[in-house]
């Protein structure tokens, strides 16, 4: 015992503490499904971990769907609030990401419906082009020693072109393509999320790729 004690190094005040669940397993090492179940039982740290893991993915998925950063952040918040609302009823019958993106997809569909009902007004951002803050600014990356500004510029240009191209796709094709290519979700999972057969998802992804091709033609040299 004394030997064990002698090996103990006193923890400095600045050391970061790991968040550990009551059963001793760190939350960062638990699966999404376990975290969601723990959250359903009132563990708020589990929810924080879920937000940490998935907020960027959910935000990017929604952003590719609605093309507005502010709206995307609002909707991403709604997605996580829906997780809180349904935490008590959650059953791990499918992958957590399927569950999460089903919620996100429903919220996006509602937003589309809202946008269609909303009267189209004259918009300065439409007149001048895209919203400035949504654009990728390579100068932001110029201070970073590791960043290649030219590459960042190309990347920004490609991002913009991809977003523009996605905007030209029908909604259902865009959704399937974004889930497959940006969120890296399997065709089977996408079929569950969108509640359509797997063949339909495959067909939508293929059509989406065909639809994107003319807009991305000029970037062939970059890739």
């Amino acid at each position, binding site marked *: 015992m004394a030997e064990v004690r002698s090996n103990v190094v006193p923890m400095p005040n600045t050391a970061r503490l790991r968040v550990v669940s009551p059963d001793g397993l760190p939350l960062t090492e638990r699966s999404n499904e376990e975290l969601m179940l723990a959250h359903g039982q009132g563990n708020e740290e589990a929810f924080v971990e879920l937000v940490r893991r998935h*907020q960027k993915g959910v935000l990017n998925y929604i952003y590719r769907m609605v093309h507005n950063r502010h709206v995307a*952040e609002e909707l991403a918040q709604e997605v*996580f609030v829906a997780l*809180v609302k349904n935490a008590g009823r959650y059953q791990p019958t499918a992958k957590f990401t399927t569950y999460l993106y089903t919620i996100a997809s429903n919220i996006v569909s509602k937003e589309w419906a809202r946008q269609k009902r909303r009267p189209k007004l004259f918009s300065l951002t439409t007149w001048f082009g895209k919203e400035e803050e949504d654009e990728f600014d390579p100068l932001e990356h110029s201070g970073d020693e590791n960043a290649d500004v030219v590459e960042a510029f*190309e990347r920004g240009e*490609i991002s913009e072109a991809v977003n523009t191209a996605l905007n030209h796709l029908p909604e259902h094709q865009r959704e399937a393509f974004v889930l497959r290519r940006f969120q890296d979700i399997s065709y089977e999972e996408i079929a569950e999320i969108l509640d359509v057969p797997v063949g339909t998802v495959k067909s939508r992804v293929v059509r989406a790729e065909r639809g994107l091709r003319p807009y*991305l033609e000029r970037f062939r040299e970059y890739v």
Partner: protein
Amino acid sequence: MGLDQKLRRHPTRYQLVAYTETMVDRNAPVSAVLAAHVAACPMCAAEVKSIRASLECAARAALLEPSSDLTAQILLKAKSEREETRVRRRPSSFGVAFRMIAFTSAMAAVAVVIFGAAIGQPISMKPLETALQQVSTVVPSADVIQKAAAEVKALGAAMRTATSKPQSLQELEQRRAVSAMDADIAAAQAALQRNPGCVRATHIVNANIQRQAETLRHLYIERKL
């Protein structure tokens, strides 16, 4: 057609996309049959090249970074949602039992007033007021009960001024019926003390009080009008 079956014709567009995905992602198994076909077929090779350019473009698109306060906003909204959920759930668990007991005791107090008024005995209003105070905090129809109780109190006072002797055989029968109902109410109250929130006992109390009220109304009408 599966990806590993021998190709007798050009692969479908989906097969080519799936094949190209394996090249772009570099983590999925590549179909050797399809690869052999693409290598030998210039048309399919050109198609794969185009698909690959699109997919790699998409893969190179920058990801949007969440704003610095997004996590805080989500956690804040989640917290307020949890609070709202707690408030919504509270009356459904503990509140139902409490509401039932409060409602039953209020009804019992009303019955005591009615019965006491009918037989002409002075009634203490304290238990009724206490019960109604309880009810007013949880039961939305407390005002209705209070109005009915006030009406019964006025009727009882009016009845007490008249002679306590029954004026007809029908009145005598009605008084006996009220007494019998009072015995039922007392039995149901005893059951409620043993088993608080018992639905059946609550129904018995409620039904008997309603019948008592109706009987007393008849008595009053017959005497006064």
